[in-house]
């Protein structure tokens, strides 16, 4: 019963994706859109597969991935530690809260020119931008998770002889894990988006740069390839994070 309805759901869910591709193919086949502007899906996916095995394209992906992971890692470390510290200490909270309220809604991409001036056009400025954008969702959900930890969980651990500073690692961090991972999932998608945009705005390599190069020469096929690549990358990373999540949260209900 269960697997059948599951596979039915999968087919059902694939339907709109197939539909979009069919519509795309139809537009080209029936001559509504010229091939130069909208290449047929077969050509695009064929080009993607051909590109994926070339050394140069793999290097572009590698450049994007390095920036993405470095930025994400910085955002996770900073976001989780600041979030927990702000939940644990009223003094830190009083400082962090107003700063976060000012910086969180600030469009970080506007800082990019400044980052370029300060850190140059290499990895540094892009990684910083990625980290700055992914930081706040992770920080805020960590803070939320850490400040809603059930009081009696903490009391139980304290009664069992856990010292106050240990409580942070032994109770608050694991108890806040579900919402930390939710924040990480949002942060990861943001990382994908931001790294691509940063590469589009100014770069000499990476998937975003591939798109810009193609746009300059009006190669529609080559413009679709990096977009599909980043979408697939996002799906794969999201899947990996989902696996990590279901392992880490195996004890939590509804995980």
């Amino acid at each position, binding site marked *: 019963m269960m697997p059948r309805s599951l596979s039915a*759901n999968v087919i*059902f*869910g694939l*339907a*709109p*994706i197939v539909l*979009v591709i069919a519509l795309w193919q139809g537009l080209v086949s029936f001559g509504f859109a010229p091939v130069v*502007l*909208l290449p047929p899906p077969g050509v695009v996916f064929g080009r993607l597969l051909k590109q994926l095995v070339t050394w140069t394209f793999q290097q572009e992906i590698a450049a994007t991935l390095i920036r993405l992971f470095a930025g994400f890692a910085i955002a996770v470390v900073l976001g989780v530690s600041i979030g927990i510290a702000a939940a*644990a200490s*009223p003094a830190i909270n*009083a400082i962090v809260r*107003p*700063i976060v*309220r*000012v*910086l969180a*809604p600030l*469009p*970080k*991409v*506007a*800082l*990019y*020119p*400044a980052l*370029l*001036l*300060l850190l140059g056009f290499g990895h540094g400025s892009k990684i910083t931008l990625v980290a700055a954008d992914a930081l706040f969702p992770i920080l805020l959900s960590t803070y*939320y998770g850490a*400040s*809603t*930890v059930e009081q009696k969980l*903490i009391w139980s651990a*304290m009664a069992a002889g856990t010292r*106050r500073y240990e*409580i942070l690692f032994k109770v*608050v961090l694991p108890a806040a894990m579900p919402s930390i991972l939710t924040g990480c999932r949002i942060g990861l*998608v943001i990382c*994908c*988006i931001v790294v*691509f*945009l940063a590469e*589009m*705005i100014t770069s000499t390599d990476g998937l*975003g740069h591939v*798109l*810009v190069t193609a*746009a300059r020469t*009006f190669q*529609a096929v080559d*413009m*679709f390839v990096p*977009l599909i690549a*980043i*979408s697939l*990358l*996002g*799906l794969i990373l*999201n899947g990996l994070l989902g696996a990590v999540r279901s392992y880490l949260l195996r004890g939590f209900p509804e995980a």
Partner: protein
Amino acid sequence: MTSPSALARRAAPMFACIGLLAVWQVASLALKNDSFPTAIEAIRAIPDILGDKESLINILASLRRMAIGFGIAVLVSIPLGLLMGRSRAVAAFFNPLLMVIYPVPKAALMPIIMLWLGVGDITKTLVIFLGVSLPVIYHSFEGAKAVEEKMLWSGAAMGLSPLQRLVRIVLPAALPEILTGCRTGLVLALITMITSEMIARQSGAGNILFNALDMGQYDTVYAMIIIVGAMGICLDAVFERVRARLVRWSEPQFDMPLSFS
């Protein structure tokens, strides 16, 4: 409401702004870098930008596109999200498509859409629309999914039709979550707006920013950063006010440090 501690809490973001500007000032004085003007120099350049007619028109045009894109996105996304939340079939139908679209940077679609629709307002508005839609759909979906089944049963028992239940029970019950999505969407609209203008380099606030960068007018670069940042903070603050009014009945946002420390 007017106790000194409440007043201090309300003024805290102001202090944070001043503090951040002060850190900037000190850092720039310490670094003595040509491409890193002091905060005061950047602030001094703001009136020049806002006084310049062309810049002002550019910025206002940006804001108009943003408002239109945001408005249409909200109007389309909330009903879709609510339907997805209340109907498994609708959710199963749209979820995979949305998952595929989610990690695609919407502003990156600019070059392709430009090929089709040109560099005009429509392209930029469309990109903003795409950027705002997803978080609003997602939060409306989550909010509608969490609505208590028994509340809907009560509604059905009172003789409400499915559509009436959606509008009169699901919509208000999911409103806190929907507004959270709109808040994210609003910030995203601003981000998408700036980014699309940085990529298309035709007009708007993002364009002023990068033109100044290219021409080495560093004061203008930083002044524009302050202007865009202020837009984000103000829009967010205004929206937060509206949100707090609309969902006064719901649980106040959690605001307390843990008591073990």
